[in-house]
């Protein structure tokens, strides 16, 4: 049986008259990288803060690592990298990670070894003994990632972990996320970088105006593969017949049709069926719908600025 690391039901949070999160319900499984996507102000950061007990929900309940929200037991096994990673800037990266390790009850040689291991992993060993105040945003994020992992967590919340990183830094974070997954660690990832989410996440939830409006299992989404057909004629009987293979989702032109199917395995069947029906087939092309297209579709035009 899959173990759930997050099970949130109906979480709601308002700040004064502003509704930040409305009826947030979601689950995250052990060893899963879960993407949490939404436009600015959708309530993503507030959702993370509720799960970390930094913000108290007005309604709803949740368990993190099997314990109620705010439990110290759960927080001892959780890592967190905030969006704007700020630490005491008079400390060096090594000191900062050491202090956070101590807050987890770690001490002595084991802690020092873990610090070296993590600073090496995030490629910060050379700058480890310099004060944080001299760090670039990307360096701060890498040092912050080290502090988030110091306690060898079972669940890591990362809020925009790569927003200040250069491409190599992003690759580094991507590799670390994969390592975490292979070690059975779950990751809850807030990110605007959809390409990155697409390559690292197992599953995503789209949040709009404080509410999860859609969830998607990436790579295995039954409805994420689209076939574009150029053929003559495309009449109602053809459209009706193609419905056996999937869902007709659009007509980009008189002789064009978009069909959403389970995967590329149906392409030969669709081609054969059209040819057998006497339809002149000029082009048939399958492609997976990108996460960005999903995002735009799910969010709708009302969320587009301008």
């Amino acid at each position: 049986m899959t173990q759930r690391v997050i099970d949130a039901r109906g979480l709601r949070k308002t700040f004064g008259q502003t509704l930040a999160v409305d009826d947030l319900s979601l689950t995250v499984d052990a060893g899963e990288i879960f993407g949490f996507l939404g436009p600015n102000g959708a309530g993503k950061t507030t959702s993370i803060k509720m799960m970390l007990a930094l913000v108290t929900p007005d309604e709803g309940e949740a368990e993190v690592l099997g314990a109620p929200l705010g439990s110290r037991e759960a927080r001892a096994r959780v890592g967190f990298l905030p969006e704007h990673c700020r630490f005491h800037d008079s400390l060096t990266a090594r000191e900062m990670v050491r202090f956070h390790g101590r807050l987890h009850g770690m001490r002595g040689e084991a802690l020092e070894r873990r610090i070296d291991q993590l600073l090496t992993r995030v490629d910060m060993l050379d700058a480890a003994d310099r004060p944080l105040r001299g760090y670039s945003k990307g360096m701060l994020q890498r040092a912050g990632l080290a502090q988030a992992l110091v306690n060898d967590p079972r669940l890591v919340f990362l809020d925009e972990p790569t927003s200040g990183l250069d491409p190599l830094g992003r690759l580094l974070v991507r590799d670390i996320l994969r390592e975490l997954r292979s070690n059975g660690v779950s990751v809850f990832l807030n990110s605007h970088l959809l390409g990155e989410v697409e390559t690292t996440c197992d599953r995503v939830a789209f949040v709009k105006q404080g509410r999860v409006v859609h969830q998607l299992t990436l790579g295995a989404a039954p409805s994420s593969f689209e076939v574009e057909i150029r053929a003559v004629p495309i009449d109602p009987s053809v459209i009706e017949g193609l419905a056996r293979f999937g869902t007709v989702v659009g007509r980009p032109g008189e002789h064009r049709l978009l069909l959403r199917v389970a995967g590329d395995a149906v392409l030969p069947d669709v081609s054969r069926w059209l040819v057998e029906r006497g339809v002149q087939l000029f082009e048939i092309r399958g492609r997976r719908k990108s996460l960005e297209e999903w995002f735009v579709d799910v969010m709708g035009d009302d969320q587009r600025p301008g």
Partner: protein
Amino acid sequence: MTMPALLTVAHLTLYDARRRKILTAAAICGALFLALFWTVSFFVARDLRLNPQPFVQRQITLVILSVFGLYAANFLSVLLASLLPVDALSGEIDSGVMQTLASKPVRRSEIVLGKWLGFGAVTVVYFLALATGVLAATRFIAGYQQLNIGIAIPLMVLELVVMHTISIAGGTRLGTVTNGIMTLGLYGAAFIGGWVEQLGTLGGVYALRLVGIVVSLFSPADTMWRLAAYYLQPDIVRSLGNAGPFAGGSVPSTAMVWWTLAFTALTLAFGIASFRRRQL
């Protein structure tokens, strides 16, 4: 509550505080003050040597010198106690530092108490260093042994603890600047309340005295200085009876010490409860 987490927060607070500019500024001010006080003590002692005075008058001069020195040390320490922790919580909440800290398996109360302990230690050590410098100057340069140090120093320490507790508790709700204004405002009110109480006592105006006492109940810090000043001065100096920071016209009762301890505990409890409810 686990001691290691609390002590780790206190350690972090100490570690961070020692690299702050305000502490450097306070250390420079303290060093300048001590240099000035030692110089003054040297000239006072030389003058007393060159122009011998009757014993009583000599003692009065030395007592005033010593009490003035301790008052200045106390005042500088009050400023440090009020301003050093003024952004301890509010600044870290605003900057986001607190989010990382509070997401760890640490109780909110441990964060408040750790900071209280850390900043308290810095302030008390600072004051003790200044007070030692003052007492050393009066003892070894001017040849005067200050009275009742064992009572007066703890009272002054309690005053500092009140001020730094107010500053930390205020930071759980108020922004940095507002908290600074509120903390120093309370100290100012206590200071003026003390004068009002002295004037009321000396002039026999009961209403003025009552106003001073009521202000002291809401902000008891200055009463600890006034009580300390009472113990620092021999009867003959007290009997001079002027209103002011060294005056002995109206002496706070020892019940004020208990109230100040209770006030500190209540303020700290408020700070903890307030920070527990704070949305980070």
